[in-house]
């Protein structure tokens, strides 16, 4: 029986002190959560999506609750990479936690420009390329639903950065392994999945969609079975590490994703319900390993018994 657990995991050249990271867009850059979470105990902070120019996002209402989940159509509102560096990165530089910046663009050139701007920022540990946001009209998910477009973005950003490169995949595809293999072939150091499932809800009193944009991204416990399945498929199809997410709210959920093949896990929507969720899950994951006599948390990765 072990009395300590080695919680470290590796995402390519990046070592995390534990597998629990934040899901992009649900944790901003961590500042708002600093009163509830010891940020230094996170595996990494994955920031809200950042683009070259400021984006205004979509009209309100932008969220709607659904059975065991929520829809959002924030639409990647962000102040642009320059403002992000001047504010969020400066603040993040004061915290001892790996920072993974989630980047977006309307075109390949915009992705590249953001990556180039971040290249010199030492505080940025890795990039997560979001080719999967269902909430913007141009770009966004379109890159993630086509093998060739996904490959193209990856290739271009790869040549613009020496930082570890993670590509975030959309679940709104017929075969996610095909996209995962394409981005692996272009030099991605890891993939993260899933982004949100495209969904819609209609208010039966007003007959209006509950989101001003009509459709939005579904997240939360409702999507977990789809996410676990895709992590399992992708982890079997590629040899780069997978960051698993989609509905993780408890330590057992995190274990489930790791068993399916995830090296690290991201906590998203659960932060809204419980701002301490990342800490609770990290502690629970360690306790799970201790109880089961698992010395290294990384042993869970892919350990599903078929």
């Amino acid at each position, binding site marked *: 029986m072990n009395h300590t657990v080695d919680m470290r995991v590796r995402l390519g050249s990046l070592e995390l002190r534990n597998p629990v990271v934040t899901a992009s*867009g*649900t*944790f*901003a850059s961590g*500042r*708002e*959560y*600093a*009163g*509830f979470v010891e940020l230094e105990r996170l595996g990494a902070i994955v920031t*809200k999506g950042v683009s070259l120019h400021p984006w*205004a*996002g979509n*009209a*309100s*209402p*932008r*969220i*709607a*609750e659904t059975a*065991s*989940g*929520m829809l*959002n159509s*924030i639409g990647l*509102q962000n102040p642009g990479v320059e403002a992000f560096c001047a504010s969020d990165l400066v603040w993040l530089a004061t915290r001892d936690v790996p920072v993974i910046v989630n980047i977006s663009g309307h075109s390949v050139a915009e992705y590249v420009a953001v990556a180039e701007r971040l290249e010199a920022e030492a505080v940025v540990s890795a990039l997560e390329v979001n080719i999967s946001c269902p909430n913007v009209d141009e770009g966004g998910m379109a890159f993630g639903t086509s093998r060739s477009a996904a490959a193209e973005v990856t290739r271009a950003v790869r040549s613009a950065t020496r930082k570890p490169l993670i590509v975030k995949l959309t679940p709104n595809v017929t075969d996610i392994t095909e996209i995962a293999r394409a981005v692996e072939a272009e030099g991605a150091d890891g993939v993260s999945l899933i982004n949100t499932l495209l969904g819609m809800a209609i*208010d039966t*009193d*007003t007959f*209006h969609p*509950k989101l*001003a944009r009509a459709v939005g991204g579904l997240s*939360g*416990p*409702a999507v977990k079975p789809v996410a676990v399945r895709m992590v399992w498929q992708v982890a079997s199809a590629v040899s780069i590490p997978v960051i698993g997410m989609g509905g993780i*709210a408890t330590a057992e959920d995190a274990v489930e994703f790791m068993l399916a093949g995830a090296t690290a896990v991201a906590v998203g929507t659960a*932060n*809204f*319900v*419980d*701002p*301490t969720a990342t800490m609770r899950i990290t502690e629970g994951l360690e306790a799970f390993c201790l109880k089961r006599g698992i010395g290294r948390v990384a042993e869970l990765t892919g350990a599903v018994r078929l």
Partner: protein
Amino acid sequence: MTCGSDGGLERMLLERVTVLGNERVTEGVGLVVLEAPRVARGVRPGQFVHLRIAEGRDFILRRPFSVHRASGERLEILYQVLGVGTRALSLAERGEEMDLIGPLGHGWEMPDTLSHALLVCGGLGSAPMGMLAIELAEKGVAVTVAQGASTAGRLVARELFADVARRHEIATDDGSAGERGFVTALVEPLVAQDRPDIVYVCGPEPMERIVAAQAATAGVPCQVSLERLMGCGIGACLSCVVSTVHGQKRACVDGPVFNAEEVLWASAEIPPKY
């Protein structure tokens, strides 16, 4: 369990609270009293709490509620039963525990120079006005309340206002109390007669917009409390944005109270029903 926030930001807490009482105020409206020592001590008028109502369930987002009154270790929340969350809240029994994050947001601004304030509230808009009216009165500010509702029975917090306000005008859609018609009809004469130093408004957004215009015409500063659907409640998710002349602001941390003149009403639409 409670835990404090980072230095730079407003001090917000995650606090485990106990239901001390929960009663029906009128059809579809309830008042819940919570024992919340830490948050109750820190809250200021117009701030809100983000309440986790039903923990047993698979998943339910927190729901934001203004603090109606705070005294000692108690918080009072006045709520309208609309959907799953507020229905669950209406069933909460004495002794039950829940948790909340608070106090959140920027409350009403109360400049020291104030001598006369007009509070305009429609429907449940009286919720965040309780503490405000009490604190203003305690400071010696003359308080006028213009309160509107569909019918007399729905004039929630009517007694509170009657107690602390120097003047309390009422309008109801059906004329069962006060003037028949909208509360907005009361505002113009009140502004003209009473010459308040400030107008505070809370109610359905179209009503807020009209009152803001009335105040602007009269050259009186006006503050409005806006509602948005909220995910995190603490500024991280951008679900609650309000369009202002200074760009997009988050209702949860930059509001819910805004200077009316900053708000770009046209794009600041709330869900149709509320």
